[in-house]
């Protein structure tokens, strides 16, 4: 034990620098590859790569990583099952819609560090970077408002109420009209969201002044940076006063409150942190991926998909969740379609599009298999792994005599078998 403590500290010290550097290198290489190498590659190689791993899918997966990390704080760290996480994606998206769009139902004009293409346009145009922060905090406040009445509930009840809130936000978005004010423009949605401005960086040669439809490579950098910030916050917040309180609540809420942990406050903090990430993801998605906000995107299946990423990746494990989000969003956006196309090519059938159509059937199957054979996820959290691999000592010892008896019997049967074998040999 004495030896393990310093080694643990050293490991922590190393990994503190290893992962950010590794992350930057991986993203840098991806950027270099897509920005500099891919346009110069031979046609058939390049088309294969753009078919199997298009940059747009990679960008989208970064948004999913942000969302999954946010939900992981709520579900993985604090153990609160939230089935309505899409609400925060929607609120983040609409925050972007309100603060950085062409006018859709209003006539105000306001500019704040807007990117060059819209400096003369009508409507409210605030720079992406500021909207990110605003949307994050708006979502955090929304999380507090939604959480305050609901987080008193436990387990299944909480899940049901969060599900309801997720649906409500979706319906409000679809309806559009809130007390006579057109907030969301209903089904049509908010058509054009401003591109990301690069500010002073835009003066450097080779960097566009704003990231339009054809600057996916730079969007990768922006979204990956956001995901990196979320990773950083996730990892750090876990190892502190609040992270410990969350784990304690996950394990035993009553005992935690008896040890002076303000359970409601800690749960609200988890909810608000998760919502903050949701806001970042929502703005990133609206501005960099779709360029519009449409209510049809915010339905229940999104909540379930994000939850699936968290559960399959490994609840509570930041890296598991990140990989889960990347893999699942790839399967969603490209993998299934591409497999279908490939299948058709090999077999000559025309059933490829069925792959994508049945994605939730497939996800369900994968989930069942995972729960059977690897219930902790791809990369289970350290603690969950312990729970699954070793029986609790007190539990096992409460059986005490039975276990030793069973072992004795086992030993006996081994001896018998051995003797039997020897007899046979003779």
């Amino acid at each position, binding site marked *: 034990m004495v030896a393990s403590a310093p080694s643990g500290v050293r490991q922590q010290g190393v990994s503190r620098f290893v992962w950010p550097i590794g992350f930057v290198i991986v993203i840098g290489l991806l950027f270099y590859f897509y920005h500099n190498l891919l346009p110069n590659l031979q046609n058939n190689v390049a088309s294969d790569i753009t078919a199997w791993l298009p940059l747009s899918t990679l960008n989208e997966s970064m948004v999913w990583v942000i969302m999954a990390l946010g939900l992981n704080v709520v579900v993985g760290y604090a153990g609160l099952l939230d089935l309505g996480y899409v609400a925060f994606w929607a609120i983040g998206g609409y925050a972007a819609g309100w603060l950085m769009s062409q006018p859709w139902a209003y006539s105000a004009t306001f500019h704040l560090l807007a990117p060059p293409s819209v400096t003369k346009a009508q409507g409210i145009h605030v720079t992406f970077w500021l909207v990110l922060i605003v949307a994050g905090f708006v979502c955090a406040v929304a999380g507090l408002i939604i959480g305050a009445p609901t987080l008193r509930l436990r387990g299944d009840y909480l899940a049901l109420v969060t599900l309801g809130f997720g649906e409500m936000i979706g319906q409000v978005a679809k309806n559009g009209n809130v007390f006579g004010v057109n907030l969301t423009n209903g089904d049509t949605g908010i058509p054009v969201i401003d591109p990301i401005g690069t500010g002073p960086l835009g003066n450097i040669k080779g960097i566009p002044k704003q990231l339009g439809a054809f600057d996916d490579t730079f969007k990768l950098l922006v979204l990956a940076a956001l995901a990196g910030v979320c990773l950083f916050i996730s990892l750090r*917040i876990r190892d502190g006063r609040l992270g410990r309180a969350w784990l304690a609540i996950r394990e035993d809420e009553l*005992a935690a409150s008896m*040890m002076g942990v303000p359970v409601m406050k800690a749960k609200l903090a988890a909810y608000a942190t998760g919502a903050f990430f949701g806001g970042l993801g929502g703005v990133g998605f609206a501005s960099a991926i779709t360029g519009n906000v449409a209510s049809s995107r915010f339905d229940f299946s999104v909540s379930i998909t994000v939850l699936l990423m968290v559960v399959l990746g490994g609840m509570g494990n930041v890296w598991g969740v990140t990989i889960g989000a990347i893999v699942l969003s790839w399967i969603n956006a490209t993998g299934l379609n591409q497999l279908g196309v490939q299948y058709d090519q090999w077999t000559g059938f025309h059933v490829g599009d069925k792959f994508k159509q049945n994605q939730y059937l497939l996800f369900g199957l994968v989930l069942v298999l995972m729960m059977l054979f690897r219930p902790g996820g791809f990369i289970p959290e350290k603690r969950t792994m312990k729970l699954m691999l070793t029986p*609790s*000592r*007190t539990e096992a010892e409460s059986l005490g005599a039975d276990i030793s008896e069973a072992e004795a019997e086992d030993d006996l049967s081994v001896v018998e078998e051995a003797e039997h074998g020897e007899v046979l040999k003779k």
Partner: protein
Amino acid sequence: MIEAPSTASPAASEPPIDELIASNWLYASHITIRFGGLVAVSDVTFSIPPKSIVSLIGPNGAGKTTFFNVITGLYAPSEGRIFFRGADITAVKPHLRAAGGLARTFQNIRLFNLMTAEENVMVAMHSKLKSGMISTVIRTPRQRREEREARDLAHDLLRFVGIGKVAGETARNLSYGDQRRLEVARALALAPKVLLLDEPTAGMNPQESAVFNDFVHRVRDEKDVAILLIEHDMSVVMRVSERITVLDRGEMIAEGSPDEVRNNPRVIEAYLGTSGAEQSRDKS
């Protein structure tokens, strides 16, 4: 046959309530708890003087644990008030009572099983630490110092209860006795003034129970706390307690020193039944 002071008629000689509130670290005045039509605890007045070791005993279903839960704030009393170090805490939430220095352990151990012993203790320091979300993410020097000090304190507490060597071990892997000790260390991390131990020797073997006596005294003397025990094991109760309160069917039937309680006919009756009480009277 010593006649023990009965609680039936003490009102006349009782000092004024203000004095009782001020002179006791915990004073529960005329507590009644009803669950529907059932009266679980009826008009019990109970005090814990500074740095004392007092016990609450009684046969099964006497209302000991219910009373305990009222003190820690899990139930609100139907009638009566609770004062902790001079302040009325009847309406104060459980986690604030804990943060204010009213710590407890659990009858059936409730540790945070997947966390290490050290982390278990550090969770209880939550109310003592100050760093918020942002300073944790940035890791300000103050936050790092606070964490380091908290960890050192946790190690001190673990050593104090005698399990310093397993600080990095997951709580669920500890032996039963060590888990009980860890619960005490965790409760002590709240820097309590009153420590409530709910059947601390349950499941311990006779040797462990024997050591327990010294342990309780050491905790009281070195950590400057008053201790309330709920206990089934009579030999432990009689040895360790300075004052014993006996509950039976929700009512306080006796209070006094171990010797007084031991010889109180109502206590004997409650524990052994009427015929048992007669037999024991015949013997003495």
